[in-house]
């Protein structure tokens, strides 16, 4: 973080609120006033970004009648009055939230974990090994970066509905067609990720090749070099890819909405949408949304530095 100390005034928008200062004021006083205004501006923005979430958490603790009562005062943002966890118990009574949570955790862990392995191996092959067609493959992978998932979502439903799969029916393993309503349909299509491969490829090319050459002479296989040399040296790349793939996996919505109708396989985001359509008790809806937001917020706050640098890294790809 190299902050620029020199740029003490923001551009036009906030300059308008800065009063022109009389010339006899010392530069020091001017700087101090600049700071005060800056803190005021930052705090105003802070309130704008936080108030809806504060409202959500606070409302999740109140019965609906109380939410309506408090809406016209500052009490809307304060845990006052009839505070309890009743809404949370209500959610657990009404829908299998624990099952949804389990599904989402499973899908997220497997998508991210397998993705790290598969994409880093691909990155290794593309950055370290000379093989026929390497550049063509790399070019194709970079070209696919601009295909938004929304473009292929609908054709993909048609496609996965016909893929072969193994199912267990009555204790017998059977061979069948159709991936709809499975766990794998929520995981397998998202393991390989062109952007992750691209990031690994870039990161691996910054690691000096003298290490692998030495290992080659000692008779190590390429896979050993990847496992023992590249992976241990690439912590930051793995962290970045894990963070960038974790959020979309946890937030899966469009895809499971289309391919998973069975309630017991639903992830949390589709679960919350159904719950929200069935339910008129806002307090309970807010309890559900709080429940699925808090874990992610905790992860974010613990790793916020890594989060921010991952996002920044993703932007410097141009």
């Amino acid at each position, binding site marked *: 973080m*190299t902050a620029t100390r020199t*740029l003490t005034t923001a*551009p036009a928008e906030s300059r308008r609120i800065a009063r022109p200062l009389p010339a006899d004021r010392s530069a020091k006083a001017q700087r101090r006033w600049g700071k005060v205004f800056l803190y005021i501006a930052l705090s105003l923005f802070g309130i704008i970004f936080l108030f809806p979430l504060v409202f959500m958490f606070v409302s999740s603790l109140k019965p609906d009648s109380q939410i309506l009562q408090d809406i016209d005062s500052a009490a809307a943002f304060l845990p006052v009055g009839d505070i309890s966890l009743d809404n949370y118990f209500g959610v657990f009574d009404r829908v299998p939230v624990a099952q949804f949570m389990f599904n989402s955790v499973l899908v997220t862990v497997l998508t991210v974990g397998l993705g790290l392995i598969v994409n880093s191996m691909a990155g290794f092959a593309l950055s370290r*090994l000379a093989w026929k067609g390497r550049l063509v493959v790399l070019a194709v992978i970079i070209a696919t970066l601009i295909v938004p998932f929304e473009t292929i979502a609908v054709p993909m439903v048609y496609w996965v*509905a016909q893929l072969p799969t193994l199912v267990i029916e009555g204790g017998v393993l059977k061979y069948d067609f159709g991936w709809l309503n499975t766990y794998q349909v929520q995981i397998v299509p998202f393991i390989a990720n062109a952007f992750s491969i691209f990031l690994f490829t870039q990161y691996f090319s910054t690691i000096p090749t003298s290490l692998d050459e030495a290992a080659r002479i000692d008779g190590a296989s390429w896979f050993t070099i990847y496992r023992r040399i590249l992976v241990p040296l690439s912590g930051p790349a793995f962290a970045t890819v894990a963070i960038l793939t974790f959020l979309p996996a946890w937030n899966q919505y*469009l895809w499971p909405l289309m391919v998973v109708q069975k309630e017991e396989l639903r992830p949390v985001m589709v679960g919350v949408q159904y719950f929200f359509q069935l339910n008129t008790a806002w307090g309970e*809806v807010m309890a559900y949304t709080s429940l699925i937001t808090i874990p992610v*917020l905790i992860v974010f706050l613990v790793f916020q530095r890594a*989060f921010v640098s991952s996002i920044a890294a993703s932007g410097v790809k*141009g």
Partner: protein
Amino acid sequence: MTVTPPTVAAEEPRRASRRFRSIKGRETWAGFGMIAPAGILLVLFLIVPVILAFALSFTNARLISPNPPRFVGFDNFIRAFTADPVFLQSVGNTAVFALVVVPLQAGLGLLLAVLVNRRMRGITAFRVIFFIPVVTSIVVVSILWKFMYQKDGLINSMIDALTFGAWQGVDWLNDPNTALGAIIVLSIWQAVGFHMIIWLAGLQTIPEELYEAAKMDGASPWRQFTSVTWPGLRPTMVFVLVTITIAALGLFVQISVMTQGGPVNSTSTIVFHAVRKGYAQQEIGYAAAISLIFFVAVLAIALIQRRLTREKD
């Protein structure tokens, strides 16, 4: 995991040239082996679906149908532009959304980035706060704002308090004139922190010496911004504008959760319409055609980006 470490070549080559070739060969096999898992998955779940999207666009395929898909030429595209007023309205809504969101979100993101781009007590806390909505799921954000936008909800009661009762507010999501605007507000609120971070990364690539030099020449802070900061941000700007545009064109979740395209299709978007046609109404062929039109729009944006970044070199 199907990676087999390259086995020791069976043939023991005698001549150097052959030995060299076999090492090369081994490297090739190792390369194939390590790219294979990702390669197979990308072919199955990216390349094939892309080809399918093209192929199905020219058929009357249905999701579940006893009849195999039949080739219908350009019928789906002709239908979209001539016989489907909701599609045209969805294109219009998506364009309005993008045209408003792109400049506002990029500008606000830059303003926030400039504000937090300094060493000050508590500045990290502000960065984290501005970023919190980004890590909150858009599904959750949409439900929460739907709650706040109710006629007797938090937004109207805040407007009431701030204007001392002069303006009561409206039923935001149920009024065709305000629904899309309401969705624009929460979309910017949710995503602007992401682009603040991108701008911030761009700001931090500008060398300190340039500011020192500008100050020696007596440049005002505003002049420093226009002459040093802004030119240094050009590559970042292209990236930010393009990512926001592509994300804006793909608007779907907010619509699906909050309005289902209503009231009277005033918030229907291209992707929402494609999903409605393809999934709810099972018209996969027609939905694929709509997805393809969406993709062409995204591709055009991406090509413009390449043009813009090339000019710079």
